[in-house]
């Protein structure tokens, strides 16, 4: 094995959003940082230029920018008594690959979680009593509050140039914004995007039935923007190839558009592409990481020494690397002991279509986060008494652009092919609005991640095994959200509506969201969390694990705003505290 024993200060495993933020903050603090990325370099003019970016088949259906499951996937089952089988093609979620990771093909939906989301257990027990949280529901408090995280949310939103309207400035509710959000220190850096017809019809109807619609916060630029690092983004052109695509127009925040040109110019930063980290190497007492072993594109195995190791891959790979490296105790669902793999969660979605005869919606005009949202039924924004569930989600019309292979809605009872299907597609494509619901998933004792006993990746390492299903809590919650979406849909004045409820077991085939969470969660007790409130491993204190793996349960929002804020919080803890006095930042 080749070896580079000269340690770098910080080694980043994976170079998407969290790696880029870490690299920027830690190089600015004077540390030497090396990022190892298993995929290749990606940039706007070469990989998703406006001359060929509008290609639904190639980018979405043939996975041009996504993780290639031929090389690495996971196995999946709904319950522990089933045999997990490989996810042989992508479907339900779409992790990224290469420099920028999922930050290239995301929608740019930048949310803050509610203050109550950070104290989910104590808040729900406090308001509804201990019985509101069943024994098998393993939700926890984060060990950090919204107030502590506010300035880091703000920093990520200004980095990304988020377009939106504040709903709460310093405790004062603002007309036109989200009245339920936590207090902000200042408004978004950019005004909301121009609104298309579908979201506008939804917002008018939602207001009529007593809801409080507001523009979706979007890392799609409503105007030209220069971010705090001095990087310039151009105004969004509403092309409709945003979600699942790169932006050819420098209008969507990504590591490429908001950080990399600055970070890559710094002398104390280096990036190696085509290098897959296979293990974090530990000292004999397993309390200190000495560096990582990686395999480069020739198959050569190389050791790289490091003083600090940051796992900044996608959450599923972060958890797998901890399991493969022996960092922390693996979770055992039979006893509930152990922490690595514990509290895996996801999201639950549904939709309601509204079909018009007389309104041209032009759904092909869109942007990843262009829409109008209702947050009245998220988190604990409403009284859950007697409802039989906790948590919630948002509902709204997000006009991402109706690419026709994916999006050709048809009314109820339409066959899936033949002349009747063709007629329904032709008659409804331009005249349909779809209300989406985006619901939280609580953590449950039987939902977890571990290593698969049978299947391996292309390097011969065990794959991650996902055991996951929706529980009664999720189904009741999602049905409730679908009913509220139907309330708005009925007020929209269409010819007919169609409610697409989420029923039955979680299915890994249809696309839902790339919002996998948990598995290496943050908390205040090493018995029930893998990392402390600074996202530092309890067991190996020079390993930090920023990402949605830190969420003790999922919230009813897209995760990236909170992931960005937590990453800034973690990076500052390293730069300001850990470097001065290496060791645990929290005493167990």
């Amino acid at each position: 094995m080749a070896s580079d024993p000269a340690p770098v200060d910080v080694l980043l495993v994976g170079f998407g959003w969290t790696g880029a933020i870490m690299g920027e903050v830690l190089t600015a603090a004077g540390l030497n940082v090396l990022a190892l990325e298993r995929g290749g370099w990606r940039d706007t003019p070469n990989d998703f230029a406006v001359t060929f970016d509008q290609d639904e088949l190639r980018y979405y259906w043939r996975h041009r920018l996504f993780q290639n499951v031929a090389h690495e996937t996971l196995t999946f089952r709904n319950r522990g008594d089933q045999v997990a089988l490989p996810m042989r093609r992508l479907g339900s979620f779409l992790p990224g690959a290469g420099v920028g990771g999922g930050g290239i093909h995301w929608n740019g939906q930048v949310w803050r979680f509610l203050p109550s989301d950070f104290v989910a257990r104590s808040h729900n027990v406090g308001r509804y009593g201990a019985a509101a949280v069943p024994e098998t529901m393993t939700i926890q408090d984060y060990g950090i509050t919204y107030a502590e995280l506010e300035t880091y949310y703000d920093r990520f939103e200004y980095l990304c140039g988020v377009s939106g309207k504040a709903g709460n400035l310093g405790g004062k509710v603002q007309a036109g914004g989200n009245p339920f959000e936590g207090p902000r220190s200042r408004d978004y850096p950019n005004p909301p995007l121009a609104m298309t017809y579908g979201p506008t019809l939804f917002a008018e109807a939602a207001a009529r039935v007593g809801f409080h619609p507001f523009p979706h916060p979007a890392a799609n630029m409503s105007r030209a923007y220069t971010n705090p690092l001095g990087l310039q983004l151009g105004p969004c052109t509403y092309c409709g190839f945003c979600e699942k695509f790169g932006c050819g127009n420098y209008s969507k925040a990504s590591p490429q558009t908001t950080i990399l040109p600055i970070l890559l110019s710094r002398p104390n930063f280096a990036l190696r592409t085509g290098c897959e980290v296979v293990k974090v190497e530990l000292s004999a007492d397993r309390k200190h990481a000495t560096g990582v072993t990686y395999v480069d594109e020739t198959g050569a195995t190389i050791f790289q020494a490091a003083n600090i190791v940051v796992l900044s891959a996608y959450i599923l790979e972060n958890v797998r690397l901890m399991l493969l490296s022996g960092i922390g105790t693996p979770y055992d669902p039979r006893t509930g002991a152990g922490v690595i793999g514990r509290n895996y969660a996801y999201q639950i979605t549904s939709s309601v279509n509204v079909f018009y005869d007389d309104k041209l919606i032009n759904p092909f005009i869109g942007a990843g986060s262009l829409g109008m949202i209702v947050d009245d039924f998220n988190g604990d924004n409403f009284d859950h008494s007697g409802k039989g569930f906790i948590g919630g989600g948002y509902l709204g019309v997000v006009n991402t652009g109706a690419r026709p292979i994916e999006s050709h809605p048809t009314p109820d009872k339409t066959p899936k092919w033949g002349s009747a299907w063709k007629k329904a597609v032709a008659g409804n494509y331009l005249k349909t609005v779809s209300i989406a619901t985006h619901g939280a998933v609580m953590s449950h004792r039987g939902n977890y991640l571990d290593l698969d006993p049978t299947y391996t990746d292309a390097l011969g390492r065990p794959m991650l095994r996902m055991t996951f299903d929706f529980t009664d809590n999720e189904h009741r919650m999602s049905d409730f959200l679908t009913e509220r979406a139907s309330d708005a849909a009925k007020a929209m004045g269409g010819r007919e509506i169609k409610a697409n409820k989420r029923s039955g077991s979680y299915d890994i085939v249809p696309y839902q969201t790339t919002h996998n969470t948990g598995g290496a969660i943050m908390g205040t007790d090493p018995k029930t969390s893998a990392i402390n409130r600074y996202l530092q491993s309890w067991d190996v204190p020079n390993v930090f694990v920023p990402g949605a793996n830190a969420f003790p349960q999922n919230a009813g929002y897209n995760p990236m705003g909170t992931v960005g804020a937590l990453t800034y919080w973690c990076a500052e803890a390293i730069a300001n505290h850990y470097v001065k006095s290496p060791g645990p930042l929290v005493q167990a």
Partner: protein
Amino acid sequence: MARDGMSRRVALRLGAVLSAAALALPRSAFADTIRRRLPWGPAAADRPERIDARPGYLFFTDAEAAFVEAAVARLIPKDELGPGALETGVPRFIDRQLAGPYGQGDHFYLQAPMPKGVATQGWQMGSPSEVYRLLIPQVNRWAADAYGQAFAALGPDKQDEALKVLEKGDASLKGGVDGKAFFELLLQNTIEGFFADPIYGGNRDMAGWRLIGFPGARYDYRDFVGRHGEAYPLPPVSLSGRREWTGKQS
């Protein structure tokens, strides 16, 4: 520079399983350390490849072609609304897809064992090209048993009936193969060919897009965002332009 590091590396590693020779490549071949520069260069665009323009089919045998042409003509038929999948080149689209990396399963995990599993676990079959090759004869044999002739020789009503049975998973195919999963793949590929950019061989003359009113590969709707309820005035455009620009069918 490793522009497409992942796919090359996958090829290398999958190749390495079969042949240790792959490991003999020099280390400098693909590895890249990026320091104090942005690795941008001219003429490095990852543009889509042109499909093989030779006439006829590259993947399908005559019998397979007959089945696919007949099936897609029922899935998206020619009717009073306009051309269907057959007339817009969908069989050729599927043929080129199956002859290329998608058909080989370049983004499918194909390691054994491959038990059937439950529906929520998804695809548990081989690559798309393997599935078409294996399943078409099975479906034809079943059609001959059930209806007296191979699928392509049946009348349209009988074809529709056979497709409905296949769609439900009720066709008794030999060898326990999953007829329902094959039907879903065939339908998905047919819809892809009907609505994908014409550069891939289907959606001839953008007929799929014209049918529904999708304007195609445009990139700027700023002037039209606020014009609620108005008909978008411009015709569709492909990544390769429009016939009016080039004189060629797009």
